[in-house]
Each structure stands twice: as structure tokens, then as C-alpha cells.
């Protein structure tokens, strides 16, 4: 029999077995019996490690999994598992780098954008809660306070830049329909994903709305938002457009609070 390993050595041997499927170091300290060989016993942990993480990644990216097929998705997931071992206690975070990793391995744009969209859906689903602003809050605002009004987007909201039809693919899958082939629209388009109640919603953004939301995300004021709008529409239309956007955002439960900047 070999020298007894320390607890740390035992754990590293088991980790190597689970992550790399290499039971070499472990088998020095494990015995088989009539029920199962030592190799088979070790393999249970290696199999479970892969299967669990592939399942987690599949649950977070059901449309990508469905579009690729389970086998191809599992192959992709296996490469990701090797490239990005989990480092956080909650397995919920495991897929956080998946879309970025797909880009680094030069995966097709279809896969990158679908993974980006599906991960964002998850972030919106259980993103931070916040108190919502309502129209009545704004009604009491003095006219001269409006330019300095600072509005904050709901922390669970996300804006994505996509060239293709990932949103349509996700919607089709949600309706139980076949997932359409990827279509590269050629130009990037902004998509807003947000939570209303418990439900995740999304819609494409007009260019000026995307720019206005970027102003808010950067901590800008209502006055700065209007200045930005003036760059793309006639000045006499700015106030009406800004008011219209603000009303829609409030109805969509996108604005969490506002304060007057001193």
C-alpha cells in the first residue's frame, strides 16, 4: 500500500479525476470490490462532473441547445467546462463567461448572439430588485427641476447589441415553434431586455432611444438626454420625444428612482 495521502492530496487527486477523467493518483488510495472496480467508482465522479455542468449550461441556454442538438451542444459545453472551471459557490454563475468564450474560440455569430441573449434573459430574471418610479412622482416636479433630473434604469435591465435574429429565435422557441435559421442583419441593433413583474420582456430599440438609455445608464440627466436627442431630431420635437420615451419607460417599469442633481 502507498503512503497515506493528506486530506489536501486526497482532494486534489479526486479533483483531477473529476475534472480531467484521470484517476491515476486517486487509484493508489481506492480499492475496488465485488460490486465495482476502483476505476468504475472513480468514473462516477468524472461523469457526474461533466453531466451536471452540461445540464446547467443547457438550462441557461435552452434555445442554443435546441438549435445545435444535444450532442453538439454537449461537445461545445465540454470545451467551455475545460476553459472556464466554475469558481463560484452558486452553479447559477457557471455560464457567465460562455458567450464571451464563444467569441474567443471564433464560434459562429449565431451561437455567440444566442448565448448572449439567453444569458441576459437569466440576468434580467433574477437581477436586483428596486423601487419603481411612477408617473405621479414626475407630475409633482417643478418645471425648472427637469433638466437636472437624474433617472436610473432598473438594475435588472440589459441593453444588448446584436446583428442577428436571436430575439426571434428565442420567441419562436418559447411558442413551441421551430427555431428559424440565423439571419445576419449586417448592422448592429440595440435590444432592451427588462423585467416587468416576474416576466422577462424584450424589444428592439430605435437609435435615439438606445442613445437616450445609454445617457441614463451613464448617470446622465434628463437635460443631457434631451441634448442627445437634439442631435438626431429637430429641436422642436425633442421635448415631445423625451416625454414619450419617459412615459413608456415608466409604464414598462424601467425607471427606479429619480433625484435632483445639485
Amino acid at each position, binding site marked *: 500500500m502507498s503512503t497515506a495521502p493528506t486530506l489536501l492530496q486526497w482532494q486534489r487527486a479526486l479533483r483531477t479525476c473529476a475534472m480531467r477523467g484521470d484517476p491515476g493518483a486517486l487509484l493508489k488510495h*481506492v480499492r475496488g470490490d465485488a460490486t465495482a472496480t476502483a476505476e468504475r467508482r472513480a468514473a462516477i465522479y468524472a461523469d457526474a462532473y461533466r453531466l451536471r455542468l452540461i445540464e446547467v449550461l443547457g438550462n441557461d441556454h435552452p434555445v442554443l441547445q435546441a438549435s445545435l442538438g444535444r450532442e453538439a451542444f454537449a461537445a461545445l459545453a465540454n470545451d467551455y467546462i475545460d476553459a472556464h472551471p466554475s469558481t463560484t459557490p452558486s452553479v447559477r454563475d457557471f455560464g457567465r463567461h460562455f458567450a464571451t468564450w464563444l467569441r474567443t474560440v471564433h464560434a459562429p455569430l449565431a451561437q455567440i448572439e444566442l448565448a448572449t441573449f439567453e444569458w441576459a434573459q437569466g440576468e434580467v430574471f433574477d437581477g436586483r430588485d428596486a423601487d419603481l418610479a411612477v408617473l405621479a412622482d414626475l407630475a409633482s416636479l417643478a418645471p425648472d427641476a427637469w433638466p437636472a433630473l437624474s433617472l436610473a434604469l432598473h438594475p435588472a435591465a440589459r441593453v444588448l447589441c446584436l446583428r442577428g435574429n436571436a430575439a426571434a429565435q428565442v420567441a419562436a422557441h418559447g411558442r413551441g415553434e421551430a427555431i428559424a435559421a440565423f439571419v445576419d442583419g449586417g448592422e448592429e441593433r440595440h435590444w432592451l431586455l427588462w423585467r416587468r413583474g416576474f416576466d422577462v420582456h424584450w424589444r428592439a430599440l430605435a437609435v435615439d432611444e438606445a442613445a437616450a438609455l445609454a445617457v441614463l445608464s451613464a448617470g446622465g440627466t434628463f437635460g443631457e438626454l434631451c441634448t442627445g436627442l437634439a442631435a438626431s431630431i429637430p429641436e422642436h420635437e425633442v421635448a415631445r420625444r423625451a416625454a414619450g420615451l419617459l412615459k413608456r419607460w415608466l409604464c414598462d417599469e424601467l425607471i427606479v428612482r429619480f433625484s435632483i442633481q445639485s
Partner: protein
Amino acid sequence: MKTGLRGFGLGLRPAHYQAILDDAPAIDWLEIVSENYLVNGGRPLQMLDRIAERHPLAMHGVSLSIGGSDPLDRDYLRRLAALARRVRPQLISDHLCWTAIDGVQLHDLMPLPHTEEALRHVAARVRQVQDVLGRQILLENVSSYLRFDGDTLSEWQFLAALVAESGCGLLLDVNNVYVNSRNHGFDALTFLDGLPRDGVQQIHLAGHSRDAGSGLLIDTHDAPVCDAVWQLYGEALARFGAVPTMIERDDHIPPLAELLAELDRARSIAAACFAEVIAA
């Protein structure tokens, strides 16, 4: 009774949120998987808040890595403590295992060697965790598929010594006792006899599957509790008394009514067990 929990509970799963809120089923308490609620907001926490208003809760974690060689994850403990302040659970538990090493999370309940070194290591960490949380924790015996050749203690000796040295309680998973007894060839009753009578404060019941390649039993929580485990549950009750008991199901989750029917079987076994005790 040793804890604030009484009676029979279920593991709370998202598939049953609405039924639990709408139908007021006959459940005495619910157990949550803590990590599922270590999120920032949204539906999971909102549903949990609503359910916590109606049902006593237990928190059951999978990532404490109490046997791990990495330092205890203070951020994880801080978040666990915050969740406990939010839902005010009757019990907080995790598993007697390790889940991370060298900063990598395996997300599996990895087996510990049953040695004096491991015992001292785990006991010291249990005391640290209990200090941080300001309360006793329970640790659950896990299913395992291999054992360390150099074990100097049996699994039940390790558990009993851990309770004595750390002051933790035990969450006895009867299915895991059965699975390990089959996988490692020991008598499940010897296991039960080896545990401290006052140490067992909660019981888990679950189903398992069989690995086709080897015949090893795998703790999959994807099937009803089998007859052998029901029988062992009766033996556990006879030894440990009216311990709060729950059914766990994590895969192939059936409608709530099916789990409630399983829970009724647990109630029946407990009633029969204690009727015998009273009659004697």
C-alpha cells in the same frame, strides 16, 4: 422535540411555487436549497418571501465545502447569513463533504476520508461556521461511490465523533445510508446504531437510481422513495424519535400531489412506529 420544526415537509422546488401558494397543501414545513436564493432579486426571492410568510423553512446548502482544504468562503457565508436573516429558518444545514479545491468548484458532494485528520479539520471548520452564523448547523451524511483505503473510522463513527467535537447536529439522509450500505457493503442498521440518539435533528428521504455499468446505486433524487428506504426510515424513527422528516426530489419532479402522497406514507410509518412504542 430538538428543533423548532415539527412534522413532515418537502423540498421547495420552483415547479410547485404556485400550488403551494394557491392550494395550502398539508405540509408542515419546507426546505429550500440555499444557493437557489443567493440571487439578487426577481421571482425566486419574491416567491420565497411569500412562502416564508405561510410555512416554517429550513435552509439546506450544497456549497459550504465544510471538509474542503480551501479557506472557508467568507463571502458565501455572509450571503448565507443574509438569507437566513431574510427567511428566518428553523434549521440551517449542508453536507458532510467538500465541494471546492484550489478555488475550483466541482458542484458535487465529494467524499471525505474518514480519518482523524479529516475529523479535526471538519470539526474546527464547523465551529467557525457556527460562530459566523451564530447558531448550530446540521450536516448531512452523503452518498458516496468510493472510499479511502486508509480510512481509520467508519462513516458512522466519523459522524458521531464530529457531533461530539463540533456541536453540530445531524441531518440523517436515510436514502444515503441505504445507498452507501449497498455501495460499500455494510449493515445499514449498524450505521443507525452508531449515531448519537440526540444528534439527529432532521431526516431526508429520497429516491436513487442504479448505474448500469457497475450496479452502484446513485443518489439521483429522481424517483420515489423505494421500499427498502421506507423500511430503514421506520428503523431510524425507532432509534431517534419523532424527527422532522421530508421528501427530496430534484429531477423528474412530479405534480405536488404525488409528493404529498409520499409524505403521507412517511406519516403512516411514523404513526405506526410510535403506536408500537406507546403500546409497549
